[in-house]
C-alpha cells in the first residue's frame, strides 16, 4: 500500500476521540491502537515513539536534569525535520511546560527566574525572566490561560489547574490538527491526543487528590522528589497528568 493510501486507511480506522473531558472511557485501547499503528513504516513508528517520549512526563522522568530533557527535546525536534508542524508542536508543548514550571517556581517563593536557560525552553524564556513579578509573565494579552493558571495556583486548586493545562495542550493539538487529515502529522497528533484522553479516563478525583497531596508533601519535605514529581522543573506540567502512570 502506498503512503497516502496507508495514511487514509490508518486514520479512518481510528475512532474519533471527541472533546476533552467529554467521555470517561477512551474509545480505543492501547493494544488496539498499537495494532493499528503497525500499518506505519518502522521509521515513522520510531519518530512517533520519540515524540511521545519527549512530550509525556513518563518519558522524561528518567532524566535527572532539566537540561538533559531540553537537549532531548532539541534532538527530537531535529529528527522531525521533515515535519515542521510536528516540530512546532513539540516546541509548543515544551514552552507550555516552561510556563507552568515558572508558575510553580514562583508559587514556591522563588524571587527571580534564575538561570532560566537551564530549566526553560523556547521563545518565552527572556519574557518570563523580565516579567517575573507579572501574574502572566507579560504574556497575558495573547495567552490568557497563564493568568488563569496563576489564579488557580494561588488558590491551590490543582484539579482545575490540571483541567486548564490539559485544555491548553488539547487546543494546541487541535490547532495543528486542522492542517492535517491523512498524513504522518495527523497520526502523530492523534496519538498525542489519545495519550491525554487516556490519562484523563484513568483519573479518579479522590485518588488524584491523595496522590497530589503526597507529592506536594514529599516535595515540601524534600524527600524523594526527583522520583515522584518534577513540580519545579520544565516538565512539571505533565506530572499531574500522570497520577496513575502513563501508558505511552
Amino acid at each position, binding site marked *: 500500500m502506498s503512503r497516502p493510501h496507508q495514511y487514509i486507511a490508518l486514520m*479512518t480506522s*481510528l475512532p474519533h476521540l471527541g472533546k476533552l473531558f467529554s467521555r470517561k472511557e477512551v474509545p480505543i485501547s492501547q493494544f488496539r491502537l498499537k495494532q*493499528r499503528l503497525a500499518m506505519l513504516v518502522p521509521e515513522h513508528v520510531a519518530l512517533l515513539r520519540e515524540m511521545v517520549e519527549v512530550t509525556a512526563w513518563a518519558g522524561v522522568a528518567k532524566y535527572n536534569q532539566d537540561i538533559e530533557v531540553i537537549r532531548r527535546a532539541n534532538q527530537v525536534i531535529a529528527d522531525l525535520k521533515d515535519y515542521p508542524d510536528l516540530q512546532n508542536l513539540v516546541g509548543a508543548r515544551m514552552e507550555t511546560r516552561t510556563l507552568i514550571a515558572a508558575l510553580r517556581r514562583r508559587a514556591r517563593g522563588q524571587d527571580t527566574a534564575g538561570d532560566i536557560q537551564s530549566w526553560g525552553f523556547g521563545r518565552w524564556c527572556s519574557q518570563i525572566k523580565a516579567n517575573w513579578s507579572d501574574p502572566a509573565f507579560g504574556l497575558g494579552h495573547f495567552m490568557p490561560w497563564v493568568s488563569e493558571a496563576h489564579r488557580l495556583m494561588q488558590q491551590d486548586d490543582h484539579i482545575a489547574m490540571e483541567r486548564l493545562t490539559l485544555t491548553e495542550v488539547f487546543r494546541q493539538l487541535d490547532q495543528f490538527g486542522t492542517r492535517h487529515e491523512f498524513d504522518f502529522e495527523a497520526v502523530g497528533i492523534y496519538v498525542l491526543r489519545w495519550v491525554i484522553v487516556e490519562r484523563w479516563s484513568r483519573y479518579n478525583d479522590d485518588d488524584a487528590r491523595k496522590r497530589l497531596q503526597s507529592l506536594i508533601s514529599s516535595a515540601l519535605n524534600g524527600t524523594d522528589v526527583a522520583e515522584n514529581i518534577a513540580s519545579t522543573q520544565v516538565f512539571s506540567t505533565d506530572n499531574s497528568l500522570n497520577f496513575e502512570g502513563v501508558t505511552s
Partner: protein
Amino acid sequence: MNEFVVALGWFGLYAPVALGAIGSAWGCALGGSAAIGAMLDSEGGYGRFIGVSLMPSSQVIYGIVIMFSLQQPSVDAANGAALFGIGLLSGSTMLFTGIRQGEVLASAIHASKAKPEIFGISLAPAAVLEGFSVFALVFALVLAGTIPS
C-alpha cells in the same frame, strides 16, 4: 506535418478513456482505502462506505462515451487538431475530478464515522465534482458534433 496532426488526433481520441481510467483508479483507491479503514472501526454500514468509495468510477465511463462521440470514419489533418483538443482537455478534467473526488470521499467517510448523521451531506462536495465531470462530458459531446469528418 499532416502525420503529426493525425498522431495528435489519435492521441486525443483515446485520451478521455486513458485519463478517465487513471482518475477513476486513483479516486477509487483513495476512497477505497478510507472505506477499508472505516470498516475496521465500524460495527456495520460497510456497504455504504464501499458504495460511496466507488463514486469516482464514473469518470472512466464518461471518458468512454466521449471517445465514442469523437470517433470519426478516419482521423486526418482536417479533424486531428479538434480531436486532440477536445479529447485531451476533457480527459484531463476526468483525471482531475476523479482524484479530487476520491480525496473528498475519504474525508467524508472519515468525518461521518465521528458524526454518522452528516454522512449524506458530506457527500455534497463529491456530487459537485461529479457535476463538473458531467459538464465536461456534455460539452465534449456538443463539440464532437461540429468536428468535420
